[in-house]
């Protein structure tokens, strides 16, 4: 999960590897604030997989690449990833 100056730099860095997904810094910051802003809250609770997916969806990160692994959707069952 890296920053680059331009698409040209990403392509060169990939060196022929299949690309992942590229977004602008503005979208990244929007995602980061939606994802991390509760992390130091005194009443923090782990989110479910579906709640995390909803955050990705809300900032326009949809499609197969951004699909979190399916697992339990019970709150606190976080083996699918709190990150």
């Amino acid at each position: 999960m890296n920053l680059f100056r331009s698409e040209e730099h990403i392509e060169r860095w990939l060196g022929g590897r299949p690309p992942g997904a590229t977004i602008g810094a503005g979208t990244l910051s929007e995602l980061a604030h939606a994802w991390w802003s509760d992390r130091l809250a005194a009443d923090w609770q782990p989110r479910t997989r579906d709640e995390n997916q909803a955050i990705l969806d809300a900032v326009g990160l949809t499609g197969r690449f951004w699909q979190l692994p399916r697992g339990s959707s019970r709150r606190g069952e976080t083996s699918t990833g709190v990150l």
Partner: protein
Amino acid sequence: MMNDADLRVRRATYRLFVELGRAPTVDETSNALDAPAADIGAAWHRLHDEHALVLQRSATEIRMANPFSAVPTAYRVNADDRWWYANCAWDAFGICAALGAHGTVESSCADCGEPLTVHVAGQRPIDDELLFHCLVPASAWWDDIVFT
């Protein structure tokens, strides 16, 4: 599933991370919670298994309290009058979000190494021309979280 006791340890760990400006040790967390060190270590391992924090591979020490990194990385963030290390570009912006603060992200282009500085104010980067590339699909982020 995280129980209330583990959540208490997790919250204390994060609180201490921010207070100290670095990852707390088992003993520091034990003292803060007035709990046996062995209980803190066991809770950290359960939280690691639940992806609520990341431990070093061979020691009961914090590696990541996402978005904060306990070890130096290529992503430095100045926020809330202190320098922090982030685990990746996403986490760098996440530190500003978690602290509820304006900040400055310092890194470099992963391709050419040119220094990159991004100021974040009001949850937005001042310069949003830079690009973020995520190589690993979301379904595999936790297969190797350090690589991700």
